[in-house]
């Protein structure tokens, strides 16, 4: 799941996977602004088949947070 999420983020925000870490979050990449954040939630739903509710999406500070939310919502391990 972790690898797939990194790929999704790198592809959406047009960066290399190597530029990302668990600590990377909104504001750390030029395209990861408020609209970019909504776009990421949409892309995650498309690729993982999981809708992240607004209440969770707002609390995402980092990729690590996203992984935790995805793990909770899908029941899959990271």
């Amino acid at each position, binding site marked *: 799941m972790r690898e797939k999420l990194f790929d999704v983020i790198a592809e959406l925000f047009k960066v290399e996977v190597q530029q990302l870490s668990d600590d990377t979050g909104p504001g750390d990449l030029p395209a990861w*602004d*408020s*609209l970019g*954040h*909504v*776009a990421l*939630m*949409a892309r995650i*739903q498309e690729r993982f088949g999981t*809708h992240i*509710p*607004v*209440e969770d*999406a*707002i*609390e995402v*500070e980092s990729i690590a947070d996203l992984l935790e939310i995805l793990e909770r919502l899908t029941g899959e391990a990271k």
Partner: protein
Amino acid sequence: MSLDIEILYPRALSDRSLSGQDASSFTELVERLQRFVRRPNPFSLDDRFATLEGLSDRLLQGEDRTYPGLAFLAAFLRSAHLKHLLQREIPNLAAIDRFVATEDRKSLFIAPRGVVTHWIAGNVPLLGMFSWALSALLGNANVLRMSSRQDPMLVQLIDQLADLSDCGQSMAERTVVVRCDRDDEAAHRSLSECADARVAWGGKEAVEAIRALPARWDCEDIVLGPRVSLAVVDPALITDKIVTRLATDIAYFDQLACSSPQCIFVKSADDASVEKFVQAFVPAFERQSRAIARHTLDFAETYQISLDRTRVLVEGGELWRDQQTQWTVAVVPELHREIVCANRFVQIVPFREFDEVCRQIPQNIQTIITLLNADDTNSFTTAAALCGVCRFPRPGEGNNFEIPWDGIALASRLTRWITRSDPPTENST
């Protein structure tokens, strides 16, 4: 009676102002909308969900990121989010398309209410798109009235919708965008008399004027008026990120939206706890005020901010501010109602007991953003809900349009609920 209404959408009519024309010209346009809603909708609710999600995709792919609040609209239009919101009010969404059995021999059909006229607020025009989207999703035809000074950005969104798909085209065909002067009573009367539902966004004067317009006796009124919002915070729970989210809630829409907190009540076990909050909040608010685009202040707004700053200092409050008039944080002993608290001017008021907050909740309250522990959240929100509060989001969620909004179950009010007793089946006795 002659009319002075400028039609911005449909585009085919946009070069044809109704200026000086007989009111029947507008009536013809409305009758076209009424014919749409009286016929079965050729597109299902799922089609319309998909179309609005397509519009969201267009917003997310767009290059123009300067219009404040587009991210909120894009998030609102996602299918999963809209379904989730509708299900708060409508247990079986299939009933929006057709009669569905709810009991042994009883069925329910949730039909569009008809023609919905939306008066868009001058200060935050994007908000009108939320009520339009919900109304269009439910199958209504819509008339959007913009003020004569408003940017026709909404028309561009309808253009994008029409361009998406056949369903988008159909939803756009059921939408008319008009512009008319605030004081043109004849124009507003026509917009009102054609409505099966009136959605009034705006300040007190605007919504009262709309409600005073003649309307059919069965017209549904949804008044999204001049509400105000607050925040209640326990400094023991703050982190840099949470404070940034709270600052963002306040800075967005230049604090002119009804959901923008005007005052933060800070739980203060001692002076140090308020100090701790202020030290964290001021730099976050300054940062977000720089980061989020804002409108240019006019002379009256600038004067008001200067006046309010002086008022705080004269009355012994503490002030943090920039050198211009871009942002202001005032620490005052209690909520100062003379201070306008718009354009990024926020009051911080210390409190010890929740009763003190409840006593200061204004009658036109909408939102209280809460950052409290679970026990405090439960006890405070239970008491404050009875003081008129409509929603208690957490920091960062303040400006997320949701339903119910302003305490109103919008989907129910924008539909007609039709029951049917079904004939006995062969197995019935």
